[in-house]
């Protein structure tokens, strides 16, 4: 059975310029011990998606629709109180973007990791602190770090602390939003190694949100590419990297300056659309080098290429391979 099923999730905000359709009908699913990569650029709605799943919603929400089914249970039907007690942090937890900066500078790091556990009131301090120390070791930090303060740690160490903090209540699903974007490439590689280990040893499912499609191949079994609030292609890692079908995915892959290839990296002209007034038809058509007649008129549905591989492009109509 799938651990997570998201069906047609929508999240619209109210802003001075109009309604921002940040998440516009997203469906995805995830099994146990699986990692799903959500790849999108700035303005694609990827952070809004993670906030919607965690129900950390801002005050200017206009619409919040869709179903989120976790372990067979529809969690969108839960009240705020129930969601807080049962789901948030103990079933689904999150490592936020730039989370290193949200560590409390006046509390010891070990105490901060233990805090959600202490709030549960089911364990005493000693147990909570022991678990905190164990997690520090698990993320590759020496136990002494428990007594350190945030400013004494490097960026990489702080990020490991945040990961430990997300694991304290043994969640089934961890959402990571750009967990390595502020880190050096060597430290990033260390953290990715760590996450790979967790996926295997702890049986955790992960949703890995990033703008770096190459990085997602380091961890993710499945990939979904987000553009202007919609998923325009999704599939297994082999399908997505091997035979991407949507022009945006293809261009995204071509824009990586690879070490091994000699070809010059490509770029995508133009800018992502304004989410208050998405374009008619396919949202990517204005920047697409392959656009043809139907592209600006009707939004394409998600065409099935193969099992698990869907692409939202008129070029894929009738594609069966």
């Amino acid at each position: 059975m799938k651990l997570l099923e998201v069906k047609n999730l929508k999240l619209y905000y109210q802003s001075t310029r109009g309604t921002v359709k940040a998440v516009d009908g997203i469906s995805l699913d995830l099994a146990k011990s699986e990692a799903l990569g959500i790849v999108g650029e700035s303005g694609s709605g990827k952070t809004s998606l993670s906030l919607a799943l965690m129900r950390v919603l801002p005050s200017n929400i206009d619409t919040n629709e869709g179903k989120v089914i976790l372990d067979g249970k529809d969690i969108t039907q839960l009240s705020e109180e129930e969601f807080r007690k049962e789901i948030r942090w103990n079933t689904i937890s999150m490592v936020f973007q730039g989370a290193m900066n949200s560590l409390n500078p006046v509390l010891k790091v070990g105490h901060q990791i233990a805090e959600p556990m202490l709030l549960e009131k089911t364990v005493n301090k000693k147990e909570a602190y022991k678990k905190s120390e164990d997690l520090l070791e698990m993320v590759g930090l020496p136990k002494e770090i428990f007594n350190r303060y945030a400013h004494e740690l490097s960026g990489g160490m702080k990020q490991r602390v945040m990961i430990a903090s997300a694991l304290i209540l043994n969640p089934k699903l961890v959402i990571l939003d750009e967990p390595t974007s502020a880190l050096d490439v060597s430290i990033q590689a260390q953290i990715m190694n760590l996450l790979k280990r967790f996926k295997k040893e702890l049986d955790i499912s992960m949703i890995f949100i990033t703008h770096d499609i190459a990085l997602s191949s380091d961890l993710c079994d499945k990939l979904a590419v987000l553009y202007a609030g919609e998923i325009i292609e999704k599939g297994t890692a082999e399908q997505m990297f091997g035979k991407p079908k949507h022009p945006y995915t293809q261009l995204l892959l071509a824009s990586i300056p690879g070490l091994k290839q000699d070809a010059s990296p490509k770029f995508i002209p133009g800018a992502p659309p304004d989410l208050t007034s998405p374009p008619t038809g396919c949202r990517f058509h204005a920047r697409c080098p392959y656009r043809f007649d139907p592209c600006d008129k009707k939004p394409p549905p998600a065409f099935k290429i193969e099992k698990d591989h869907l692409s939202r492009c008129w070029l894929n109509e009738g594609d069966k391979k």
Partner: protein
Amino acid sequence: MEERTRNLFKELLSSGSGKVGIAFIIALIIISLGVIIIYPPDFGLKYWSNPVLWADNPRAAPPAWTNLFSSYNQAETVIFETNIPTERIPGVSTTKVLYTFNLNHKADEPPSFISMTVGNIKYNNRPPVLIVNIERPDGNKIELYRLIVPGPLPNEVTPFARFSETPFRIQLSGNHEVVSAVSNFLKQEFDVSISNQDLLLSGVDIAVFGTPQDDGKFDVLMGVYKIQVDAFLYNEDDSIGSVKFVAGGSVHGFMGTDTLGRDLSIGLLFGFPVALFIGLVASSITTVIGTSLGIISGYIGGKTDTSIQRAADIFTNIPLLPILIFLSFIVGPNLFIIILILIIFSWPGLTILIRSMVLQIRSGQLVESSITLGASRLRIMLRHIFPQTAPFVFAQMIFFTPSAILAEAALSFLGLGDPSLPTWGQILEYGFRNGGIYVGYWWWILPPGILIVITAMTFVLIALGMEPIINPRLKRGH
């Protein structure tokens, strides 16, 4: 830039506090402009400090509209003033010029005093004579007073001018001639004996405007009183300029009077532009000095920074009050000195704040890129650093204005102010000094305090309305 200003106003008007603040400040500005246009520039010395001019006002009188709230009808001040005689009766050698005033007395009490003022009398031969009569509603007529204009001096030439610069005022109610006349009248008409002494003490007006009762008290006689001033001129070219008769009330004017009889509404109105002037001048100069020094201190650093910061430390630690007392002792109280002192002691606070802002900005890429372009230090400070601090500076200026106004009011209240100028603080101080609280002169004590608070609040409301612009995180979600 224009778009930013437009945005500023839009943001300001979108908030409740901003709207109220703008409405108030427009009102303040209109009133102040009106006062500046209408009042003469030397108002303070010539009018406010000149007792002669409000001699005809009742002392410590509540505002006239309080009459509406009590069943006891208090007497209002009635002033008759004219240059043109009611009647002119030429004669062979004597011209009789009559001034008639009809006073409809409806109050439950007599006037607090009666007075006559004449001005600008010219004569060529014999000095004119004026006789003041009053005819009561009950038909009785009293000749109150006879004035013989002072005669010519030894070396004087015709025409002889008397009372041209300062009109001549006679407080009829306190004049012994009048007292005798009234005393006689009482004896004759009502067979009531009151000594001149007693009459003077209790007030001649009770008798003039009342009917004696058996218990020794007087009942007010309501009705129309005809006051006649007869002037006898002995030459064709003689003339009388102005004649003024005042029946003092116990209530007066829009805001009442103080113990010197000064019309408080005039004084309080004068306070509007003064308050705005003090507030805006003190805060703008302080802001300019504080910001410039803060930017220079923060950006240039080194010895310049240290010296400016030490200067700021010194000024912050010197106690303001003793210095002020000391200065006012030496120089004498002066509004400009007060403003100067306020500025000198307020700039350090702003400098220290701006300096820390600049230190942060300085480490940013904007300054680095400007240096790379080859920009001079001055250019960087003016063109790149200052605009980043501008919203904060502007808000500080607005916040500081009420502080300056309150500081001046406090200083005046402590007696360190400039007594020749009627600022609100001054009026408040004078009221307190004359025991306003204990005696209950609410019309004197409350209005200046309320006006100070409203003015200060106006600026605070505007600053609150502008907050989202200074701190974009506070932007109101529309």
